[in-house]
C-alpha cells in the first residue's frame, strides 16, 4: 500500500514539521481571464499543532486548503510552488507534483490528510447513510472486513459524541441536526486516524453553542491523537481560542504569519492590525464608531500592482507600495510580514522579539 514513487526533498524542514507550503500559486483559467486565487502562499505546520488561516472572504483560504489535498475544482490549477508533506513512513512528498487523480494522492486523502467542510448538510450525500460514508473511508484506507469497518464506524460516531451511534449509522444526513452532521463529518474524517485534519470553516454554518461544542471536540480529539489541524476561518475569536500559529491571508498570499500571541499582541502588517481593530470589544467605553477597513477587496481581475493591500492601507507610501511587491520580512525567528515598513534584511532584532 506504499506509494510507488515519492519525491524526496532535502529542503524539507526539521523533523517536527508535518506540512510546508512554499510559494504556491493556484490560478483559475476562466473564459473571462485568469483569476489568481492563490498568488504565492507560504505556511508551515508542526506536528500536533493547530495552524489557523484567517482572512476576509475571497482571500484564497479555501483554495489553499483544497490545493493541499489537490481537489481544486476545474478550471483551477496549481501553477507553481511546493507542498511538502511528511508521510507516516517518514518520507516527504511534494503534493503539488502528484497527479490529482492518481493513486498516491488518493492514498493520502482520507488516510493521512482529511478535510471537513463549511456546510455539513451539503458535504454529506443526500441519498447515502452516514454509515456507508464512514465505512467507505475505512474500507478504502485500512485492511479490515466489513464487520470490522462497521464496528469501527460505530465507535467513531461514539467518539465524536453522537448519541445512539449504531442507530445513527443507518440514518440519512437529512435526519440529523446541523451540529450532529458536522460531528458525523468529523467522524468520517478521523476514521482512519489522519496525521492532518484540514477544517475549512467548520463552524461558520452552525449556531454559537454548537460552534463551541465542535471546537472543543476538535481540540479534544487532537489532544488524544496528536494530529495536526489546519483550521480555516474568518473568525478571529475562534483563532484566539484554538490556534498555535496564525497565517493572515490577503488576496491569495500570506501577509503575516507567526505565533498566535505575536499576531494578537504585536501585529506588524497594517492589514492584520486593521483586522484586529475591527473586532467589536465589550470593554470599549467611548461611543466610537467601530473601525472598518476602507474600501473593499478588489475584483480578482483587478489585482493592484505592488503590494496588493496598498489601495486600502493606512500606511500607504506613494511611489513605493504601489510599485514594489514586498517580500517576506522576518521580524523574529518565526514571525514574518510582507510589508515595506519592515526591511527584508532585518533577520534578528532582539528588541522586537515577542514574549513567547
Amino acid at each position, binding site marked *: 500500500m506504499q506509494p510507488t514513487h515519492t519525491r524526496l526533498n532535502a529542503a524539507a524542514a526539521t523533523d517536527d514539521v508535518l506540512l510546508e507550503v512554499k510559494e504556491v500559486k493556484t490560478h483559475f483559467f476562466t473564459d473571462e481571464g485568469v483569476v489568481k486565487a492563490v498568488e*504565492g502562499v507560504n505556511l508551515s505546520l508542526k506536528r500536533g499543532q493547530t495552524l489557523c488561516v484567517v482572512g476576509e472572504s475571497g482571500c484564497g483560504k479555501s483554495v489553499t486548503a483544497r490545493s493541499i489535498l489537490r481537489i481544486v475544482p476545474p478550471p483551477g490549477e496549481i501553477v507553481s510552488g511546493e507542498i511538502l508533506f511528511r508521510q507516516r513512513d517518514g518520507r516527504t512528498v511534494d503534493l503539488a507534483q502528484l497527479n490529482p487523480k492518481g493513486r498516491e494522492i488518493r492514498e493520502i486523502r482520507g488516510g493521512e490528510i482529511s478535510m471537513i467542510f463549511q456546510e455539513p448538510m451539503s458535504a454529506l450525500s443526500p441519498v447515502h447513510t452516514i454509515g456507508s460514508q464512514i465505512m467507505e473511508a475505512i474500507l478504502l484506507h485500512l485492511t479490515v472486513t466489513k464487520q470490522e469497518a462497521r464496528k469501527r464506524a460505530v465507535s467513531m460516531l461514539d467518539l465524536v459524541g453522537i448519541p445512539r451511534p449504531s442507530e445513527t449509522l443507518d440514518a440519512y444526513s437529512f435526519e440529523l441536526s446541523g451540529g450532529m452532521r458536522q460531528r458525523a463529518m468529523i467522524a468520517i474524517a478521523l476514521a482512519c486516524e489522519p496525521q492532518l485534519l484540514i477544517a475549512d470553516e467548520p463552524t461558520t454554518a452552525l449556531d454559537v453553542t454548537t460552534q463551541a461544542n465542535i471546537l472543543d471536540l476538535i481540540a479534544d480529539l487532537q489532544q488524544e491523537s496528536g494530529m495536526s489541524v489546519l483550521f480555516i476561518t474568518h473568525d478571529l475569536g475562534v483563532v484566539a481560542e484554538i490556534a498555535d500559529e496564525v497565517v493572515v491571508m490577503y488576496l491569495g498570499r500570506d501577509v503575516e504569519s507567526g505565533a498566535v500571541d505575536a499576531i494578537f499582541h504585536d501585529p506588524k502588517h497594517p492589514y492584520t492590525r486593521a483586522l484586529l481593530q475591527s473586532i467589536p470589544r465589550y470593554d470599549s467605553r467611548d461611543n466610537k464608531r467601530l473601525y472598518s477597513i476602507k*474600501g*473593499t477587496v*478588489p*475584483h480578482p481581475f*483587478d*489585482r*493592484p*500592482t*505592488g503590494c496588493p493591500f496598498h*489601495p486600502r492601507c493606512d500606511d*500607504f507610501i*506613494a*511611489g513605493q507600495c*504601489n*510599485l*514594489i*511587491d514586498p517580500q517576506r520580512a522576518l521580524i523574529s525567528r518565526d514571525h514574518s510580514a510582507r510589508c515595506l515598513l519592515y526591511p527584508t534584511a532585518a533577520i534578528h532584532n532582539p528588541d522586537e522579539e515577542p514574549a513567547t
Partner: protein
Amino acid sequence: MTGATTPPPVDDRAEAAPETRIVVANQWQLIWWKFRKHRLAMFAGLVTLLLYAVALFAEFIAPYSAGTYSATHTFLPPQNIQLFQQTETGWRFYPHVYGHKVQVDPESFKRTYVVDEEIAYPVGLFVRGEEYELWGLFTLDLHLIGAAQYGDPVHLIGTDRLGRDVLSRTIYGTRVSMSVGLVGVGLSLGLGVILGGISGYYGGLIDNLIQRAIEILRSLPTIPLWMGLSAAIPLTWPPVRVYFAITVLLSLIGWTALAREVRGRFLSLKTEDFVIAARLDGVRELQIILRHMVPSMTSHIIASVTLAIPGMILAETALSFLGIGLRPPVVSWGVLLQEAQNVRSIATAPWLLFPGLAVVVSVLAMNFLGDGLRDAADPYQT
C-alpha cells in the same frame, strides 16, 4: 512579479482607482448582454425572426399562390438552379432551371420526367408573376423569387399530385403553422398565468386543487385525447373556426407547463426581501403583484413561452397529418405532410417531405432560442 509592468502615475487617484466607474444597466440590458454571448441562440433567434417574416410576407415570398395547380406538371421533381449558361463565347451568368420531357413507359404507362437540358427557364429575384393581395390591402404581382417569364414552369422543390408548387405551399403553410404555435401558446399563457399565479400566490387549498388538476392533465396521453376531442369538430365548420377550435384544444392541455413555471416563480418571489419590504410598506396586493413580482418573472416567462411554441407546432402538425386537425383547403405543414402519408407516395415523390424539413428547422430554432433565453433570464447566474 507585477513590478515589471509600467507603473501608473503616482497621485491620489491611485487610491480611489477601484471605485471610480459605476455603470448602471437595467435588467433587460443585462439579459441582452448575456444572451448576445450565446452564439447558437442568437442564430436561432435570427432564424425564428426569418420564419415569422416568411409567415407575414408569404404571398410575396412564394413564387405561386397556394392553390395554383397545373394538370400537366404533376409530381414534377425539384429543379436545380443553374447559375451559369454556356454560350459560344464562354460562360455567362444566367440563373435558370432545365425543362422536362415526359416519357411514358410503354408497358406500365407510368409517366416519368426526364431532364431536358435544351430548355432553360430563366429564374430571377423580384419577378412579376401572379397577382395577389398582401394582407388584403395592396394588390401586387411582385414575387421574391420565381420564373423570370410569367408562365414558365419553375418549381424549385417540385410539385404534388395536382401539380401544385411544394415550395409555395410550404411557405404559405408557415403562416398557419407558426401562428397556431403563437395563438395556442397565447391562450395557454393566459390560463397558465392566471391559474399558476393564483396557485402560487394564495397557496393552501386552492394551490393543492390546481396542482392536482395539473398532475392529472400531465399524466394523460395527450395525442389520443386530442384525437378524440378534435374528431368531434364538425366537418361542416368553416376553416377559420376549425383553426381556432384546434388551437383551443391544444392550449387546453398545454397550459400546465406554463402554470407550473409561473407558480414556481411566484412561490420563490413571495419570500424575496423586496416583496416582503413592499408588503411591509403597505403596498396593495395587486400593486405588489403587478409592480414587483410580474416584472421580475417576465424574462423567465418569455423563455418558457418560447420553449412551449415548438410543442404546439408539433402537435398541430401531427393532428393535421392524421387528417383530424386542420383540413384542406387550409394550408399548414401538417396538412401538406398528409400528401406523404404512406411509403408509396413518398417513394414516388420524396420531395413531399419538404414541409417536414420546415417543421424540424422551426422547432429546432425555437428550442435553441428558448434555451438561450432561459440561460439569459437570470443574468446574475453564471
